């Protein structure tokens, strides 16, 4: 008992000697750790919420990104469950196209094609949207994987997938 009491006294004594939260003292390393912990905890619900929201969106619509070359599917990725942005390199023939995807959509990150229209199309986030590369005869599109979820649209008039139409030559 005595030892314990002494120990308690010692602790009290130490705290009195080195008060942690007294104003006017330097911002020490442990304070920085504490602030960072608070910041992480504060952002946690936001980041988790954003992830769950994106995941719920793709689960609800059951979206997948599909890449076709000359009408034939060469790559497919279920967007549901993608925890973070993921990069894919898809090779076909002597060409290569880089695709990025997350739970809420997909986009062409890079392509060696001359006009770069597929890259400039940007992120596709709705079923039915597509990015088209005429020179490589490639289409990246978002498709529904849940049959009970109807497509938002069946077709888009005035766009063949973000492509700014090339005249019939």
């Amino acid at each position, binding site marked *: 008992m005595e030892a314990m009491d002494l120990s308690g006294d010692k602790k009290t004594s130490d705290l009195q000697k080195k008060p942690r939260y007294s104003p006017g003292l330097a911002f020490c390393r442990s304070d920085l750790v504490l602030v960072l912990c608070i910041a992480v905890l504060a952002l946690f619900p936001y980041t988790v919420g954003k992830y769950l929201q994106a995941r719920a969106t793709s689960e609800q619509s059951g979206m997948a990104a599909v890449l076709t070359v000359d009408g034939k599917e060469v790559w497919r990725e279920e967007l549901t469950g993608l925890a973070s942005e993921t990069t894919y390199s898809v090779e076909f023939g002597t060409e290569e196209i880089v695709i990025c995807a997350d739970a809420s959509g997909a986009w062409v990150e890079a392509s060696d094609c001359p006009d770069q229209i597929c890259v400039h199309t940007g992120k596709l986030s709705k079923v039915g949207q597509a990015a088209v590369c005429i020179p490589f005869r490639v289409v990246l599109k978002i498709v529904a994987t849940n049959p009970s979820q109807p497509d938002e649209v069946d*077709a888009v008039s005035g766009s063949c997938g973000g492509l*700014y139409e090339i005249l019939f030559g």
Partner: protein
Amino acid sequence: MDRDGGTKEKTYSTEFFAMNTVMYIEAVGPESEEAVLAGCDKIYALDAMLSRTDPKSEISQVNAGAGVSEVTVSEETFRLLENAVLLCEDTGGTFDISIAPIMDLWGFSGSEYRVPAAEEIAATIGFVDYSGLILDSSNFGVSFSGDGMSVDLGAIAKGYASDCVLEIMKGFDIESALINLGGNVCVYGKKSNGEGFRVAIADPTHPTTYAGILEVSDLSIITSGGYERYFEKDGKKYIHIMDPYTGMPADSDLLSVSIVGPNGMRCDALSTALFVMGKEAAIEYWRAHRDFGCILVISETEVLASRDLEGVFTVTDGKTLDFFD
């Protein structure tokens, strides 16, 4: 394949590249596969027949020789040219298939764009006159009134192709079809759930959003706009839709024009013509005809549509829709 609505139907679809764009054909019904494949074959045949860059095509042969002597073409190409000239007349020349020399001058026939000097435009615009196309129905002969003229069916080829494909597909046992030729859309029948097809109108101000959505069946929906193809030089934007009267890019107060009607070729021609006309003249043209639907995108937030589309056309959030009578 099990379609929505619980009805067991055979669905067949294919995606392919032709006419320098991506195409998609889908059909539902016992003979959907045969119908779609027959439609594809027709597209490839038309591509070979009407292409302006393939020297073996009939149109290339017309352009190469008709200024010197008459060129005989197939009956199909001849009838297509005949109908195209009627559309040129009907639109007062705002749609003109003889615009090809001007398109070449600006580089829109390929991809090396340039801004021609005013003198070059003045020297070329004289070749643009659809009435200089001489059609002899006795032998399907085509000639031009002078050397230097040429025709480009780019503004109607896909619309015409969708009409041809649909006619062929109707010869098979199918219940519905969706034909999308590079954004020129044609829908036939209703979906298995009994609803019409949902066809979005591209947003001219953003490549992956929509100006609005139509719910339709048995119609073509064709859109033209300056956003589709353009180049920029010294901070100025030059769009690919040319004014046949000036030889300059159309100075339109519209961002896009969508035409909804039963004939794809006419919809295709009118979408270009009404864009060139501009808002007031386009509305007047619609009032004088009233046998097609018309959607005019005025700005990022303003959309006008002909009254006949009320109930089947809605705009997306953030845009306003007004109907005209």
